[in-house]
């Protein structure tokens, strides 16, 4: 924090408002110079509690976890330094490569599917009436139920024989019986379906919050200009939702690549490795070798990939905003 910085620090800038009017910056007033010293520290002071908690409970363990990935970990007998051997083992394992592919497909499909359905749900259920309140609550249930239990329930639905619940249902429209998670060809899609089902209400909630922030007068203006509903959504709603969409995409990258419990409970990575994702592979490796270094290496790799992806999303967004 040099003295030179202090001038710009005092200017509080809000980003381009979505629904409001244009941003004007006021000239720096003379009066503010008195608060220079205090204002310099203020942002960091506000960040302090979060910073402290992250430092102690996240960064220090993270550093240690990353350090451990360079060792063959034997907590009692003493760790053996192996350099990047753990990383090499993982990258050369063809099962990890297949799992990477599955992870990308699953994450991508779940993200898009959940966002789309979440958006449709939000559009459907926006409003203040009591009955809407009830429907929104009911639809939200998948989010609050424990993932493991949801996995068990869907596994029951996916019973592959004709007498299974879903097969019974779809037979009314002349389809099926399908094998869902029991067949290597359809298992990944089935897992994706459950993921979309669970995440769509989650996305719905965020989009609802975003929709609530849109200036109603913009809608009115659009209607006066003769815009149809579709045009209004395209030109007013969606741009206004950009911050929410950014949130959702970023979070989806982080959450989606880390997916574990759903897959684990539904299929355990099978059948025939068709739903193996990165974290189930890490889990299996940790279980097989019962050794923390290899598992750490796998997780660190995932971390790096996620980081790169997230940085890209942020950079892309900044570039769009600067335009």
């Amino acid at each position, binding site marked *: 924090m040099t003295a030179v910085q202090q001038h710009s620090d005092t200017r509080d800038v809000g980003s381009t408002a979505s629904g409001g009017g244009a941003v004007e910056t006021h000239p720096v007033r003379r009066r503010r110079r008195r608060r220079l010293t205090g204002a310099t520290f203020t942002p960091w002071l506000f960040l302090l509690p979060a910073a402290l908690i992250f430092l102690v409970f996240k960064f220090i363990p993270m550093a240690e976890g990353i350090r451990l990935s360079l060792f063959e970990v034997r907590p*009692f007998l003493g760790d053996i330094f192996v350099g990047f051997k753990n990383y090499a083992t993982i990258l050369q394992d063809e099962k990890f490569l297949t799992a990477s592919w599955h992870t990308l497909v699953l994450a991508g499909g779940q993200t898009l599917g959940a966002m789309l359905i979440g958006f449709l749900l939000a559009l459907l259920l926006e409003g203040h009436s009591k009955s809407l309140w009830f429907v929104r609550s009911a639809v939200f249930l998948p989010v609050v139920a424990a993932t493991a239990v949801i996995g068990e329930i869907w*596994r029951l639905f996916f019973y592959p*024989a004709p007498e299974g619940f879903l097969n019974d249902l779809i037979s009314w429209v002349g389809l099926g019986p399908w094998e869902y998670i*029991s067949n290597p060809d359809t298992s990944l899609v089935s897992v994706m379906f459950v993921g979309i089902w669970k995440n769509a209400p989650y996305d719905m909630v965020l989009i609802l919050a975003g929709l609530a922030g849109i200036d109603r007068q913009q809608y009115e203006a659009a209607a006066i200009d003769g815009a149809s509903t579709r045009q209004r959504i395209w030109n007013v709603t969606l741009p206004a939702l950009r911050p929410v969409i950014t949130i959702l995409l970023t979070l989806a990258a982080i959450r989606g690549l880390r997916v574990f419990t759903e897959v684990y409970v539904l299929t355990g990575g099978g059948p025939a490795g068709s739903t193996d994702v990165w974290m189930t592979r890490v889990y299996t490796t940790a279980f*097989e070798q*019962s050794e923390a270094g290899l598992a750490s290496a796998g997780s660190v790799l995932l971390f790096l990939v996620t980081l790169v992806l997230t940085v890209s999303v942020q950079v892309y967004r900044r570039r769009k905003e600067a335009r």
Partner: protein
Amino acid sequence: MRRRTATTIATLGVVALLAGCGSSTPAASNKDPNKPLEVWTRSTEATAKVYEKIFKSFTDRTGVKVDYKPIYNDFDKQVQQRAASKDLPDVVITDTGSLGNFVKQGWTTEIKRDDLAGGGDIVDRAWNNGKGADGKYYGVPFSTQAMVTLIRKDWREKLHKPIPTTWEELDDLARAFTRDDPDGNGQNDTYGMLVPGTVDRGYLAWWAASYIWQGGGDILEEEGGGKFSVGIDSPESTKAIERLRKLFCEDKVMQPGSLTLSTNDAHPLFESGKSGIYLTGPYMIGRFDKSLGKDKYEVIASPRGPAGATVLGEGEDVYLMAGSAKTADQKKLAEYLITPEVQQAGMQGDPQPVVRLPVNKNVDVNATYNDPRWATVAGVYSSESRPFPSVPNFTPFRQKTSETLNSIFAKCPADSSAELKSLADALKKELENQKASQ
């Protein structure tokens, strides 16, 4: 200035709060000879009750205090955590399968079989459960069991089929259960065999191993002197696996969805009348008696394959953990746990037993249980059961074998020898890693 004071006060406040709510870092409890003996068991609430009684009577008898912690979640992970802070519990009672890992990590101490009071009363077969890859003992056997075959008696009788004693009869029964509507509800909704076939934690291999042995094959062949060779692609193993593949792919008598079932997901399918044959552990008898009813199913020894009726036999061991300052007390507890009285108390545990088959030869299984089915289990254990090969760590072999078998049974290739060959190569590499290759 005011801001800085505020920050300082806040920081001091947080520290005070932490100090107040936390405790100063304690010294490792296993190093303190005055602290009670810390004992962990892999237990749920039900079995914890039984253990509590046992440990209380131990304290009454010997004066040694016990700090007992029943653990069920992620047992191995929790042990790992304590190991990381060099503060292992003094005694751990858990599966025989953990022995390899405990030894590899140096967490468990060697047991001198002859120094242990009452050690001579333990059946030899049980002592094998505590033997490490180097021939030394690292765990005191506490409970043993062998896999048994459970069959829906009512279904079998309805179809007028005999109790199967060979593979052919078993497979025939499975086909009948699948095709001939044994529950008489007019629907084609019953199946022959229930298989916990998920790759998770190697369950499929855990289930299939018995059949591979019965076919005369093995995942790893013992060559003596702690050395092994790969046996999974031998002609006998291949034939045994081929039989299973046929049951899955051609006869289609296996429970649908088996290849993603863990044991916990599988149990309800037997209980609710979806499958009629289940090769599993005898600890399920208690649960199935309640949910299905004693009269609806029967417990038999496995039908014979070409090389016999061998099944997997495992159990639980008492591990005396490393780094403890209370070695005398550790030994006392182990000796107490193998006495006939405690073994019997464990077997009759209410609400659930903690000892399945006793390790002490002086305990009369029949008299204690008064249930002929357990006599069957005991018979199977003593004459037909064996553990997994005693390599330093069997887990990767089990895992890799599960993955290949799962793939074969799911994809149904015309010729599985190619997959078995690549599995054999992977297992060979692992043997070399573990320095157990012949």
